């Protein structure tokens, strides 16, 4: 009965999708941090990163007013003459979707993403999670950020994990789906790679895989970003299906975001240097991007209080 044990299932999955050497990945990504991005290329990178931000607030104390101001920030991050683009999306809890829709209106380039499926633990009956997804979509969410069933994955019940994702895909309708692996709970790069493949096989072109909820101790790192974008690359070259990527949590500085973009440029190439395929789940990142853009423009380092508040979480 060995073959039916979860361990054997994991072994088979690793055999199929390949394993990852942790030290090797970390050496690879350390090289991204030595890249030196200057002048026009820096401005371009900062603007690109800004356009990829899923400006996020995910707190129990969120209010319609907080969400409205977040939406204002998303639409116009700073003085118009800075030339900063709008962010890709705002990311809120399902109960805040309708408030966000109200604040943004319907004729907007900024999308509304919502973390459904009993975020962040996912520990609710499937029907409850699906109902939450449908409600968020009905309230105007363009994108759903779901969490996978980590327990099922770690127990080797891959079919269950994939079936749940498939059910969410269906519940999404036209909304795009971002599948949060919650990498800190998967723990190893091997598992992150394997879970990426399991997810990608049941989602659609234009959907995303995402690192984290931002609610655990370890969030997006260059290392787990690398493992996931390599999985996306391998899946794309194998099937022709382009999946997007969203690192979330822990990316607070403009410099960090540029390093993630360098990873994308050198691993997935130009076709992923767009917010249709790459996002940052972040809140404080946006202001640092704006500060750096302002600094590039004026040549002077900027005090943080020149930039309007953004959400504190993430």
């Amino acid at each position: 009965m060995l073959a039916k044990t979860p361990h054997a299932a994991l072994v088979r999955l690793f055999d199929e999708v390949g394993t990852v050497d942790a030290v090797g990945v970390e050496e690879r990504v350390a090289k991204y941090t030595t890249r030196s991005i200057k002048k026009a290329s820096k401005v371009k990178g900062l603007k690109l990163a800004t356009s990829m931000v899923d400006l996020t607030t995910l707190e129990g104390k969120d209010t319609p007013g907080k969400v409205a101001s977040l939406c204002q920030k998303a639409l116009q991050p700073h003085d118009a003459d800075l030339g900063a683009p709008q962010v890709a999306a705002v990311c809120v809890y399902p109960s805040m979707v309708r408030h966000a829709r109200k604040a943004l209106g319907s004729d907007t380039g900024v999308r509304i993403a919502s973390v459904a499926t009993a975020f962040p633990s996912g520990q609710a009956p499937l029907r409850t999670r699906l109902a939450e997804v449908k409600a968020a979509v009905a309230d105007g969410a363009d994108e759903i950020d779901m969490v996978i069933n980590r327990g099922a994955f770690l127990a080797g019940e891959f079919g269950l994990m994939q079936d749940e994702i498939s059910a969410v895909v269906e519940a999404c309708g036209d909304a795009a789906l971002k599948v949060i692996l919650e990498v800190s709970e998967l723990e190893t790069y091997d598992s992150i790679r394997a879970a990426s493949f399991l997810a990608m096989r049941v989602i659609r072109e234009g959907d995303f895989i995402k690192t984290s909820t931002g609610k655990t101790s370890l969030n997006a790192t260059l290392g787990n970003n690398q493992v996931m974008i390599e999985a996306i690359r391998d899946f794309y070259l194998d099937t022709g299906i382009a999946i997007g990527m969203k690192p979330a949590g822990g990316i607070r500085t403009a410099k960090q975001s540029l390093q993630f973009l360098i990873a994308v440029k050198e691993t997935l190439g130009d076709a992923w240097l767009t917010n249709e395929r790459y996002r940052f789940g972040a809140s404080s990142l946006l202001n640092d991007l704006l500060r750096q853009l302002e600094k590039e423009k004026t040549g002077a380092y900027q005090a943080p209080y020149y930039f309007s508040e953004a959400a504190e979480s993430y």
Partner: protein
Amino acid sequence: MSRLPITKTPKPYVGGAFIRSESGRTFPIKDEAGNFFANIPQCTRKDLRNAVEAAAKAGPGWAKRTAYNRGQILYRLGEMLEARRKEMIDVHVTLGGPKALVTKAVDTAVDRLIYYAGWADKYEQLLGNVNPVAAPYFNFTVTEPMGVVGLIAPDRPPLLPLISLIAPAIVSGNTVVALASESVPYPAILFGEMLATSDLPGGVVNILTGFRKELVPTFATHTHLRAISAAGVSAEERRALRLGAAESVKRVRFADSETNWLAESSQNLDAIRDTLEFKTTWHPIGA
């Protein structure tokens, strides 16, 4: 009327067999009194080539033996020499060795084999080590035998230096092709018989008899010999061996000409190290 004794035809031990030279040539040696003693095979460069091939064939298997097993086999070789100690001493005396001195030399030869036998499963613990590199890697250095080692024994004394060269080379898994004393080759031939009965796999130790002038140049240039360990070689021979070594970047060790082979100081860990390579392996520490 006394019985006519059967004399033994001296044949060197090569590839686990007792051979004559492929050339069919021999040279006579005399005993102390100047009487004919025996015809000794005059090995040629082709015999050397064959011996190297035998040694190369035996090498991987010998090196893969456990250290414990190699130690026991060297110990067994000591047992064989001890058992035929009297015969070995008598032969030395017959060929002109002073009795007291050769007795000491043969006894020391036994002790030397026992000394190196004991090193088999210990030298690695002293020569190899783990290296604390400044990165997340497990890094360790181990030793490995060089492969086929050419040994050139001094002309005299005929046995103890030969054994003092053989033992530290083979204890680590090298196989050897040794050139015996030219003028007193018989003890080395007799030692070959002990090698044959000692559990040592054929080809691990190969002993050639013959003329240094003829054989040293081939020892020098044979590229499959990965190292030369020599004692009692002339300046001219040293030069030839070094020149030849250059062609294949061969390792060459010359024993100090002052070496007192009877002394304990002539046996040491460094003699083992001289025919070892160091290999360092890196592996990441990650999950």
